[in-house]
């Protein structure tokens, strides 16, 4: 992890050149190959393989008794005593488990505090804290946490849907959310048995859709409102070797419902419920983030500048998973294509910090030289705001 100023950046390309022009050219070539290999994100095939019975039950009946809560959509088994099939497969009681040992499903809710890495969760974070009762530290998802005091998603676009998942993710699947309650509020359509390019099953329900959601809008050719990206093969259980590569754009857009189709960015997806925090550009009513400095809200889907203090963070050569960026081309990350996004600061499932932040906002102390604060959080990008 690198969170230092430009002078501290160790550029492996420069090191490679030194070798190349030195006496041991073979070693230099090997070194370059290794660097290239390690810096290229491993693309994980999200297509599920394995024994059908691990996840499915044909009639939710065995020996004359129900297999679990249900029956559930798509004949899913509800594991681990959960009330929701998604939660059952993607949860674990041990804090050390990050991948289900039987199904290989990534664990997003450890009912004991996660211990499998320093960030205490996979890339999307962990529901442990909100599941334990702290509503500020995760999305309140059905099967994990009940509804909090919020009556709608923070930053919800006023013109958006007035019920359903935009109001709460804590409601059970019902006609009010087209049976998309809980996890399916974000992972609207899942493609466990397909490798179709939909990043982490983050697919919209089709532009302008109303309840009930038309099942036909699952078709990604007819309704291409989905996120793209390159997925780490261990979902960032570790980030020293490789990491996710998110999709972003530097094109200015409003949250009018078409951005996800057009740009397929992570931020456009988040804007589906939290649109006020991204758009509406030039809206004099106070909505949106503005269109240029001075920003009214922290910008997202905006280029990480290559000038001033931002030049101190080169995610192409020194990617910091504590403050990830998106890329205009996730398959070929380049400094010029680095983009600030929602997930630069937040973990969508939850974290140990209020507002699902990746770090303690209260530790962001301008001028600090405290090694636990300086170079972290906001200061990864805002490199001249700490005291280093």
């Amino acid at each position, binding site marked *: 992890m690198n969170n230092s100023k430009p002078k501290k950046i160790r550029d492996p390309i420069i090191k490679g050149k030194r070798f190349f022009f030195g006496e041991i050219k073979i070693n230099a070539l090997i070194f370059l190959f290794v660097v290239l290999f390690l810096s290229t994100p491993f693309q994980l095939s999200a297509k*599920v*393989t394995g024994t059908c019975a691990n996840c499915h039950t044909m009639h939710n009946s065995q*020996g004359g008794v129900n297999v679990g809560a249900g029956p559930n*959509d*798509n*004949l899913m088994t509800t594991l681990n005593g959960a009330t929701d099939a998604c939660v059952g497969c993607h949860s674990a009681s041990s804090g050390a488990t990050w991948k289900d040992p039987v199904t290989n499903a990534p664990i997003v809710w450890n009912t004991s505090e996660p211990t499998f890495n320093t960030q205490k969760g996979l890339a999307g974070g962990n529901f442990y804290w909100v599941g334990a009762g702290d509503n500020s530290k995760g999305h309140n998802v059905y099967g994990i946490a009940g509804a909090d005091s919020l009556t709608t998603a923070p930053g919800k676009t006023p013109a958006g849907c007035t019920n359903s998942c935009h109001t709460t993710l804590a409601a059970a699947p019902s006609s009010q959310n087209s049976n998309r309650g809980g996890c399916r509020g974000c992972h609207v359509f899942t493609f466990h*048995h397909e490798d179709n390019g939909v990043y982490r099953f983050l697919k919209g329900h089709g532009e302008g859709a109303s309840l009930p959601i038309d099942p036909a809008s699952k078709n990604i050719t007819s309704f291409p409102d989905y996120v793209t990206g390159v997925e780490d093969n261990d979902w960032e259980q570790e980030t020293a070797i490789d990491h996710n590569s998110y999709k972003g754009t530097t094109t200015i857009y409003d949250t009018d419902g078409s951005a996800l189709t057009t740009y397929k960015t992570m931020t456009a997806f988040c804007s589906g419920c939290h649109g006020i925090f991204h758009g509406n550009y030039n809206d004099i009513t106070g909505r949106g983030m503005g269109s240029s400095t001075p920003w009214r809200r922290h910008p997202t889907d905006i280029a990480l500048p290559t000038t001033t203090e931002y030049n101190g963070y080169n995610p192409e050569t020194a990617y910091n998973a504590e403050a990830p960026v998106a890329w205009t081309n996730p398959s070929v990350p380049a400094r010029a294509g680095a983009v600030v996004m929602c997930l630069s600061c937040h973990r969508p499932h939850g974290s140990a910090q209020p507002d699902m932040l990746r770090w303690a906002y209260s530790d962001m102390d301008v001028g600090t030289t405290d090694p636990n604060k300086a170079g972290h959080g906001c200061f990864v990008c805002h490199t001249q705001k700490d005291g280093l």
Partner: protein
Amino acid sequence: MRKTLMTVCMVLLSVVLTYGLANAVVTGVCSTCHTMHDSQGGADQGASGTQGYLLTGGCYACHTTGGASGAPKIDGTADNTGTGSGALSDAGGDVNAGGADQDTRHDIVPADTFAMTPPGYTSGLTWTNQKVTCDGTFGCHGKHGATPGVKGLHHTGSGSAYRFLYVQAGNTGADGTAVNGLESTTWEAGGALTSDHNVYDSDGGDSISSFCANCHGGFHAPGNTGAASPFTRHPTDEEAVVANIDGAGWAFSSAEIDQTPMGFTSAQITAGMVTTDATTGTPYTTGNGKAICLSCHRAHGSAEKDLLRFTYSSMNAGNSTNNTGCETCHVAQR
């Protein structure tokens, strides 16, 4: 010349017997099944004691080892050389294929002590310590309001009801509605073939799945499985396999029709479909075949838990070496 005539007669007799039974209309020597006084040479005939309708034994006695010649066997003996699930069985399966494991069959084997309310049972009968019987009120074959349920049916044949099966919605005690279907000439002994296999009905109230729902109703019908994707229980009589699941991957072969048979429409059955879709005149691959209970299960029993046609624990998505069972239809999961 005399020997030749004898040989021809023997051959003709065997053919007549074979095809007579294939239509489920029993023909042949009366004494094969009946005894007039349960006495011959001063000895008891067949099963101990006299039997109703002058039979030499009950249902199970005739349809298991040593039973009446020509009667299809349900215990893996005699004519059975089927290929389903590694067991030797007719279309309905083999009650002994699973050995002592009672989870592999309907509990009609005399030694079975297993007696439970049928999984998915909704309402109607009281199943206290009641095993499944071959026919009658708690049975599968015959009219549910008659005693015995199969009375007379052996001599009227499956033209009256496919394999003497009747749908009795709600278990009201009425005889029920005859199940529709076309029967293999050999009950699929040796395995179903593209040229000779059962054809099951998968629409309306006379389908084979509606019949199974007599006892397992909670696993059938839109109210229990969902009416469309996403289903909450595996649908039967609802989803057209080729159109909605498989795409181009399902090939109509003897192996596939044996491992995972589909059901078809009443109209197709009425038209006499056996190897092709009678509506379109093309092979099954472009038909309207739907998943039915028997797509996965063998009614009598199999070597697998839950009377399955395949080993459920071996159904492994993404394993290209196993394209049977679930993956016969779910081609995308191969």
